């Protein structure tokens, strides 16, 4: 049986001219719809997790450690004074590939606002970092105030700070407000608190609340002058051209060779290994669940083909009596199954892409709808409207505030090929059975 004649029979199975009312055909279309429906969440999940992980990774790398982070020993005399520390860090630029260096002193402290206190991380940096560093200037958005007072301040007399949005919300801070920072100082082996007041120059958001809830930025000089550095850690963020370039290893090695005596140099993937492992495993788990849905949907194709074989036994027998081979018949049914898978893909893929691109609007719409229903339910129960908390489907405490969508075209092509392959695999057994049908029994009964 030729390929073309198998195709012709397959076409008659999918688009019959005579009998339109066929339960097998309905099952086939049902299976196609199921495949289409299962593809939609798979594409959405892939696009969103890709975008989300990329967005979080960019923020964690760019704002937290940069591509390479140097951990400087506090015993090094160059760390005892801001300009000396800055000059020391500048030396790293002699290594080929180092674009920028940003010395930092980091101290864990307690911040007290108008009504409550919270743990914070003070990050003392060059004042110009918000305009000089690419990640800082691109990823931080100013919610309130401006960074001019921060950048133009006289560190001898002024104490301007930039705070993260989430922290500002917790401490009820606004531009120009003063808040206190408590650090621990040790004198003669005894620990005592040191209080410093800072004024809010600007409130910024990285879009990732986990970071925005922790950080208070102050100038490097202010750290030396106003806060206790007893428990401070000294690091240098080292900017290189590409976070994902293999050249990063070379730069790290050269830095180690030149300055490794008092400093440890770590790449971003070493500093944040736990976070990225967490991201990857979450993505793998989500994609695995979505693939299971596609797999279950594909099994519908198998059932539909079984029904189709039962329904078309007579045609199979006739074809065999006119010279069709078992493999030719099998092939026709496999083509039918694959066409069903392909049809589902063609149906689901555009909807999936459309849903992924409009993920933010869809989540907002669902949130509004859920909240409206919940609010109506609570109000009917007699709960006062102002006591009802809004439901957040994707709490920005754990995710980015805006869902970044990154359409992973290579992975989408892989999904498409896998779906068609899956459709082929689930069609094989019933199709082989179709090829083995004995014409005698069927023609006798017909």
């Amino acid at each position: 049986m030729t390929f073309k004649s198998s195709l012709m029979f397959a076409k008659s199975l999918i688009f019959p001219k005579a009998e339109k009312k066929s339960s097998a055909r309905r099952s086939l279309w049902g299976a196609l719809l199921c495949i289409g429906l299962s593809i939609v969440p798979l594409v959405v999940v892939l696009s969103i997790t890709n975008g989300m992980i990329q967005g979080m990774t960019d923020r964690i790398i760019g704002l937290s450690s940069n591509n390479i982070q140097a951990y400087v020993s506090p015993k090094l005399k160059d760390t005892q004074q801001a300009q000396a520390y800055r000059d020391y860090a500048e030396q790293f630029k002699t290594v080929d590939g180092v674009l920028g260096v940003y010395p930092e002193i980091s101290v864990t402290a307690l911040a007290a606002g108008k009504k409550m206190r919270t743990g914070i991380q003070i990050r003392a940096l060059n004042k110009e970092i918000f305009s000089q560093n690419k990640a800082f200037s691109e990823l931080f958005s100013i919610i309130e105030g401006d960074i001019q007072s921060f950048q133009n301040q006289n560190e001898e007399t002024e104490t301007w700070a930039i705070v993260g949005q989430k922290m500002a919300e917790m401490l009820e801070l606004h531009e120009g407000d003063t808040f206190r920072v408590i650090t621990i100082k040790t004198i003669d082996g005894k620990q005592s608190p040191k209080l410093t007041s800072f004024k809010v120059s600007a409130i910024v958001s990285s879009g990732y609340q986990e970071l925005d809830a922790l950080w208070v930025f102050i100038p490097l000089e202010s750290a030396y002058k106003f806060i206790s550095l007893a428990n401070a850690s000294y690091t240098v963020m080292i900017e290189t051209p590409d976070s994902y370039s293999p050249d990063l290893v070379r730069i790290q090695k050269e830095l180690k060779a030149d300055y490794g005596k008092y400093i440890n140099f770590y790449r971003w993937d070493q500093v944040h290994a736990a976070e990225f492992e967490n991201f990857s495993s979450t993505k793998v788990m989500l994609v695995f669940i979505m693939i299971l849905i596609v797999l279950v949907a594909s099994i519908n194709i198998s059932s539909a083909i079984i029904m189709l074989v039962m329904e078309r036994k007579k045609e199979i027998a006739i074809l065999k009596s006119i010279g069709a081979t078992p493999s030719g018949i099998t092939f026709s049914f496999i083509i039918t199954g694959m066409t069903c898978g392909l049809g589902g893909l063609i149906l689901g893929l555009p909807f999936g892409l459309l849903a992924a691109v409009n993920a933010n609007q869809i989540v907002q719409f669902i949130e509004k709808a859920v909240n409206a229903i919940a609010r109506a339910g609570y109000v009917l129960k007699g709960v006062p409207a102002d006591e009802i908390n809004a439901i957040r489907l994707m709490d920005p405490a754990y995710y980015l505030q805006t869902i970044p969508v990154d359409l992973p075209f290579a992975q989408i092509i892989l999904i498409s090929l896998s779906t068609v392959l899956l459709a082929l695999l689930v069609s094989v057994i019933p199709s082989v059975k179709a090829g083995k049908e004995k014409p005698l029994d069927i023609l006798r009964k017909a």
Partner: protein
Amino acid sequence: MSNILEIKDLEKTYVSDSERLTILKNLNLSVAEGSKVVIVGESGSGKSTLLNIIGGIDKITSGTVLAGPDGKYNLSKLDEGEIAEYRSSFLGLIFQFHYLLKDFTALENVYMPAFIAGVPKKEAEEKAAALLQDVGVYDRRNHLPSQLSGGERQRVAVARSLINNPSLILADEPTGNLDPANAQLIGDLLFSMVEKYNKTLLLVTHDLTLAKKGGNCFKIVKGRLESAEIKGSGR
């Protein structure tokens, strides 16, 4: 003339849970190329079973069935693929029921065996159109079987049996499902087509009028073939 079909000591037994039923026993038959052999017999005598065996549709219990020049096809030894090739290139089958593919037009039904055998579609279509012209249903070539009358369907079936230029036409009660007038027409058409295309015909029928049109006539009695002389007329 050489033999196109040689059956020796054929036995066909059906075994069920409780009994063994021997339908054909020590059956011998030689069919010469170009001949028109008719087999008649009581219902259940094994006529259709014999035809199904020759068509490769049913299995042989014992004996040999050699078909084709120099016994090219030994039916007890053919696998599924070889049987398909045998049916495609050597046989033309006509059944009591038309057995046309319901979703294919008359033209598609006729050219399908050729298309399956690898003949290019255009050539197969032209050949099928000529055959439909011969059997008188060319005008209905684009109609589905459900849109054709019983007689027209059987005409299409006759045309289909000839598309691959087979050596042997096997016809199992080809008029058994038709009214007398149509049966007469289809019977005449079958013999005229076989004559025109110079084919060998092995016909199984109840219809004595049709049987009379053939040459050698046999009757199956107790599983064996005996020469028979057709007397009288009618179905």
